[in-house]
């Protein structure tokens, strides 16, 4: 179990800066996710940790040891490749035994440990099979066993579930978390699937065009995105432009005036010195709106929008609405709203509806 520290890492391919001053510390035993759209540099970062790339500048530390220039075969990481990279000329057992053979482990111990590793992923019965006789999910388990059997200093996973069907993915992601925790492994997991990351990560980092946009727990990232890019990438959201009016009692809570009315909201970045009159953008998740058929007479005159429901998409447990604000002049973009256990599907087209949102669900961001 090691801590992985990345210090001011830069990497350029040709003229293109793929990794831009990355600073990151992954704690021992943590299941850490690198998440981002394709081309954001997440796989490149993982391959730096594995040793397939050397940084142009900066360092990678395993505990206190600088491994930046250590070749991959001396790093002792266990990697699961997106394509699994199982060797077709070897059997299942042969694939799993490979790393132990390279470490000159005695025969008898190899047999025992291969058995144990295959057991931990439930693949004992397939030890003598050829790789091409396995299904995608089985190959995935073998790849995991192969990476685990060498007792790696840290486990590296490069989109390991992207080749599986949806149901298998659900099953395997729970399995991967169980194995990591059972072995007490430091694991770094690359994916572009936010559900995967949110559901099993201890912490995650969002990469955006080569730089770290935000690092935090799944709840922090989802509820308090620091930038527009993060809010946009994780989940769905509505952006509403506005201007800072005044801070509320709490220094992080501000009143923002927008074409849709005033909103109270919290700024996500505590280091951001927001000034009165400064342009901002609000991020409001579609599921945080509460819909009411009639406007209550009393209540605060902010954090509410009047409008009509336009296009609807019914998904069973949830309905997605395009909510068209009224009374704010032409051209206001529709807001996306989700309603769990939908009730507003059947209302007449011209019925005015009020949507409310709690201040803690309104995030104030840099425009």
């Amino acid at each position, binding site marked *: 179990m090691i801590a992985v520290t990345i210090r001011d890492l830069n990497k350029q391919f040709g003229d293109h800066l793929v990794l831009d001053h990355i600073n990151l510390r992954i704690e021992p035993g943590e299941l850490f996710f690198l998440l981002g759209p394709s081309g954001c540099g997440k796989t490149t970062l993982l391959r730096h940790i594995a*040793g397939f790339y050397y940084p142009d500048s900066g360092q990678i530390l395993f505990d206190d040891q600088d491994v930046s220039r250590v070749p991959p*075969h*001396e790093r002792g990481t266990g*990697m699961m490749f997106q394509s699994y*990279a199982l060797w*077709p*000329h070897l059997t299942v057992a042969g694939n799993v035994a490979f790393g132990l053979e*390279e470490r000159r482990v005695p025969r008898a111990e190899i047999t025992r440990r291969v058995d144990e590793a295959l057991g931990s992923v439930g693949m004992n019965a397939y030890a003598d099979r050829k790789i091409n006789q396995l299904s995608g999910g089985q190959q995935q388990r073998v790849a995991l066993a192969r990476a685990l059997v*060498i007792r790696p200093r840290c486990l*590296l996973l490069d989109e390991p579930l992207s080749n599986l069907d949806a149901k298998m993915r659900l099953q395997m992601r729970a399995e991967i978390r169980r194995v990591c925790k059972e072995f007490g492994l430091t694991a770094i997991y690359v994916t572009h699937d936010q559900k995967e990351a949110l559901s099993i990560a201890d912490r995650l980092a969002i990469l955006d065009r080569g730089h770290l946009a935000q690092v935090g727990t799944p709840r922090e990232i989802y509820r308090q995105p620091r930038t527009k890019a993060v809010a946009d990438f994780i989940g769905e959201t509505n952006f509403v432009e506005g201007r800072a009016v005044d801070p509320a009692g709490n220094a992080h809570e501000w009143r923002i005036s927008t074409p849709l009315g005033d909103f109270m909201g919290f700024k996500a970045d505590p280091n951001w010195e927001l000034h009165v009159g400064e342009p901002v953008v609000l991020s409001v998740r579609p599921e945080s709106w509460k819909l009411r058929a009639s406007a209550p007479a009393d209540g605060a005159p902010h954090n509410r929008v009047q409008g009509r429901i336009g296009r609807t998409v019914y998904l069973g447990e949830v309905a997605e609405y395009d909510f068209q604000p009224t009374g704010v002049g032409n051209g206001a973009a529709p807001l996306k709203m989700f309603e769990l256990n939908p009730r507003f599907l059947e209302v007449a087209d011209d019925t005015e509806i009020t949507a409310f949102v709690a201040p803690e669900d309104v995030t104030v961001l840099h425009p």
Partner: protein
Amino acid sequence: MSRLFSILVYLLTGAFFVVFFLYPIAQTLRVAFIYQNRPTLVFVKEVFRNPIYVEGLRNAFLLAVGSTGAAFVLAMPLAWLGDRYEFTAKTTLTGLLLAPMVLPPFVGAIGIRKILGQQGSLNALLHDVGLLGHDRTVDWLGQNRFWGVVALNALHLYPILYLNVAAALANIDPAMEEAAENLGCTGWRKFFKITLPLIAPGVFAGGTIVFIWAFTELGVPLIFDYTRVTPVQIFYGIKDIGSNPFPYGLVAVMLGATTLLYALSRFLFGRRAGDLTMMAKATSRGGPRAVGRAGSLACAAAFGAVIFLAMLPHFGVVLTAFSRDWYGTILPVSWTLANFQAALGHSLTVPSIGNSLKYAAISTVFDALLGIAIAYVVVRTTLPGRQALDALAMLPLAVPGIVLAFGYLAMTQEGQPLAFLNPIKNPVPLLVIAYAVRRLPYMVRSASAGFQQTSVTLEEAAQNLGSTPFRALRRVTLPLITANLLAGGLLTFSFAMLEVSDSLLLAQKQENYPITKAIYELFNLLGTGRGVASALGVWAMAFLGVTILGASALLGKRMGALFRS
């Protein structure tokens, strides 16, 4: 692999090519274009002014056109049938289709003369069935032997075209043709508007190889005594290579013509055409259709007919080898093993077999090492200039063997820095190098194809688990590309065994003769020479056949797959 290693490979192969490929050619061109330290076009102009040389060039060109055309007529329909239909004994027949490649065509020429000559089998057969009066004979090979050479070339070279066209057809996405059909374009229209343009690169690549091969073929015209053709003129010109600059001019013209053709094919079809698409791998198959019983037999018959034609020279060689006396009859009248006994006792033949094995083996090992190293650098590293290395390794395809061999002679003349390699003293080093250089492209192509088909992550996974890069290559990638390497090695070995022009030009000491040169010398001996030459040819055929079948059994693949992989 480390960058240092890559750079080392780069420099070593580069140096090798400069010394044994560019330098001999440069040496030839220097004599052809520089006289008494001044540039001159006199010798090249003289080539075009001298009617004998002009006739030689014209004949070589016509031979190439005729041979390529004939090879197309043989190969195209078969490739199409093989791609589209399932029929009786298809695997065996497509395998046998490649069989003619086990014998150099000039040996076949000895056999075909026995069958199609004035006193040959065919005339005897026609006499017997009464289609030809007993007082008349037909010279089937034509007065000037032109068509004989064309036939021999075509029958030897059509497998190259067949493999190229078959691979190209197999690579067509079936949806391309289905889309055409969906829009109402079928039959011949579809073939010419969709299929042909799609396979054009493969067709052109194969056509270029065949054309250059036929254009520079030396052995067949020699056996047919067809002397007014450029390669033969060069061959006779080497006798006074030390004093006469005109052969140099002739070589320069031939080199210019082939280079132009090669450049044209690359220009027209980009990199693909220049690649040895003989090795191209079919990535997807449309799935051939079953045809009815009659259709099935018709397809098999078409294949059978071509195979029969292609094997005819081989039969001729075998029969000649076993005959005591064969003149004016369908089959020899009396049989003997004397030729084989003579071949086993003859001072020319016994060492020649050993020599050929030795040279071919050394050059194959050399090519394997060089080919794997070059392919690795080209496919797996990011070294700047690796494409140049790749292109360099492919260049021998564009340069005919006769030109290269001539260049070797030119660069080892008295007074040259490399004179110590002069084949008059010891031809072995140059023979081995010539074989190696000429066949390197096959090895590089098959190794690169292997590297390209094998994902680099397989090697990375091994490194991640503790293998050094070199061990990862040895434990993971090399086992996975064994088939490619074996196929490439086998092609290299067989072609080295059968190499004609290099051997005829360079093997200048009897004790160092390889098989092909020995056969040629025996053929020129009076008396039993031709019988013994044929016997040696049979030995060579049997040996290569066994090698190829053995390797295919080893691989658990059929022969056709072996040549394509």
